[in-house]
């Protein structure tokens, strides 16, 4: 039995009949959430014809509307209040669907004058099934790709670690008194790249979550692998809030590998009070400084990174160039190297 007077149903039906064939679902509701008008798109999507819907409480057509928040939110509309939106993921049953149908709808309700000084609610429902399914497919695809990428990072890291292990074995074969320097240098570079793959493998977003954390792990690894005396201190002052792009972080890691290798091999003496200090800070919005300093003043008299033909310095100059900057340095005690760059 309809709780709406027939003349109201007729008036609503006449007033909104032009909206009968628009490709969105439209319903007009009174303040008791009874249906006054139900267009043909809604008939088609719900399987409920207009005659059955007209004058019936929406909650009888669709028990979902018995949930109290619907009436609570819609109540504002009957005082001419602001529009109400119902999103597809939070309201998968916003309109009744025939058995087996699983469509997504985006719905909005707005106030419309009832012609007698009061308000009705105008509920418009848009079928977003195709777009929603496409988004979910893309999301699933992305999850699969992320899983594969993670697997690749894991394998690359393992392979690089294996190469690093082979270099360690090779160094053990070097006869006493022979130079292991080139093998140390090579190993540092491999460790720097391997660590980035480890960071990416463990990151939930497959990107570097903290540049400082990567630089710290790398510094400690290089310190353990290359320390000759083990008597020096490693001081780290790295801003944990800085998150640079992965490519930039890799370049910084490679820079650190070169500078630390040099510091550990040539910069420090065997005194107990020697130290390596690494500072990484934000200078201003989008501007950063990386600095590595070590005790002692042991650079060769004719040292000049711009003309040096050593592979380490050639690489450092190239890395700095990729960061669109140059390598700064200062002779003294401590000896300092730095990069100021923007991202």
């Amino acid at each position, binding site marked *: 039995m309809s709780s709406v007077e027939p003349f109201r149903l007729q008036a609503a039906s006449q007033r909104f009949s032009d909206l009968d064939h628009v490709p969105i679902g439209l319903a007009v509701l009174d303040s008791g959430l009874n249906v006054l008008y139900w267009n043909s798109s809604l008939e088609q999507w719900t399987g409920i014809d207009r005659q059955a819907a007209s004058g019936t409480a929406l909650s009888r057509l669709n028990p979902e509307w018995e949930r109290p928040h619907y009436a609570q939110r819609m109540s504002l509309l009957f*005082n001419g209040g602001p529009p109400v939106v119902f*999103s597809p993921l939070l309201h998968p049953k916003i309109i009744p669907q025939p058995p087996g149908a699983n469509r997504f709808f985006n719905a909005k309700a707005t106030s419309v004058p009832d012609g007698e000084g009061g308000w009705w609610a105008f509920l418009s429902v848009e079928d977003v099934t195709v777009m929603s399914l496409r988004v*979910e497919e893309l999301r699933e695809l992305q999850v699969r790709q992320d899983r594969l990428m993670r697997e690749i990072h894991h394998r690359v890291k393992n392979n690089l670690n294996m190469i690093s292990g082979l270099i360690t074995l090779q160094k053990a074969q070097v006869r006493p008194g022979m130079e292991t320097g080139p093998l140390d240098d090579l190993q540092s570079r491999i460790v720097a790249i391997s660590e980035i793959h480890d960071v990416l493998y463990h990151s939930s977003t497959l990107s570097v979550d903290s540049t400082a954390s990567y630089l710290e792990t790398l510094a400690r690894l290089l310190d353990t692998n290359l320390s000759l005396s083990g008597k020096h201190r490693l001081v780290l002052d790295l801003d944990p809030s800085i998150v640079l792009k992965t490519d930039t972080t890799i370049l910084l890691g490679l820079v650190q590998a070169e500078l630390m290798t040099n510091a550990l091999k040539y910069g420090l003496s065997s005194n107990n009070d020697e130290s390596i200090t690494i500072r990484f800070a934000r200078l201003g*919005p989008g501007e950063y400084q990386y600095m590595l300093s070590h005790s002692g003043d042991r650079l060769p008299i004719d040292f000049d990174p711009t003309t040096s033909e050593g592979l380490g310095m050639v690489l450092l100059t190239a890395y700095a160039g990729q960061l669109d900057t140059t390598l700064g340095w200062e002779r003294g005690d401590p000896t300092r190297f730095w990069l100021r760059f923007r991202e």
Partner: protein
Amino acid sequence: MITLRSLSILQELINIGVGKGAQVLNTLLNHHVVLDVPEVAETTVDQLVEALGLDRTRALSCVQMGYRGALHGEVQLIFPEETAAQMVSLIIGDGYALEELDFIRQATLTEVGNIVINAVVGTLSNLFGFHLQYTLPLYRGGTLESIEDQADLEAMQVILLAKTRFTIQELSVTGHMVLFFSMPTYRNLEEALEGYVIR
């Protein structure tokens, strides 16, 4: 310039509004949701960026709705995009660790924003008897500059900034509710607040 008394009443009323919004969210989401507004401040368009304290280059998510009539302006609820993505993920329980919102998740944030904004705007307009016409809520993404570029800022001379804290289960995130007003209609709000009798 709004008086301290009015600002304090406004903060109280906005808190009542967001409290009602939280009740709706509680029943809708079946999560324990707490909303509060610990700070409300008056500012201008020129000082907005500084007052928000958000990085200009940061990706933001915004739900906005315009109003006309006794008050003329726009209300925006702004979150850093990764925060919004985290909140939506928790709400819909999809388990994805996303940093950005796709179309369907933008719709979820729009609904959450709609609930909060309606509760606040509804509380103010009902209490003061303001008759307003509203635009449909919209999602906007981008940097602060690109979001504000699309707003009709030339007509808006005064801004009220309400820091809004969402606590949903174990997640606590902070958004910014920005209420823009044209000067003549802002006077209506000021007068209503001045005349408001605390019971």
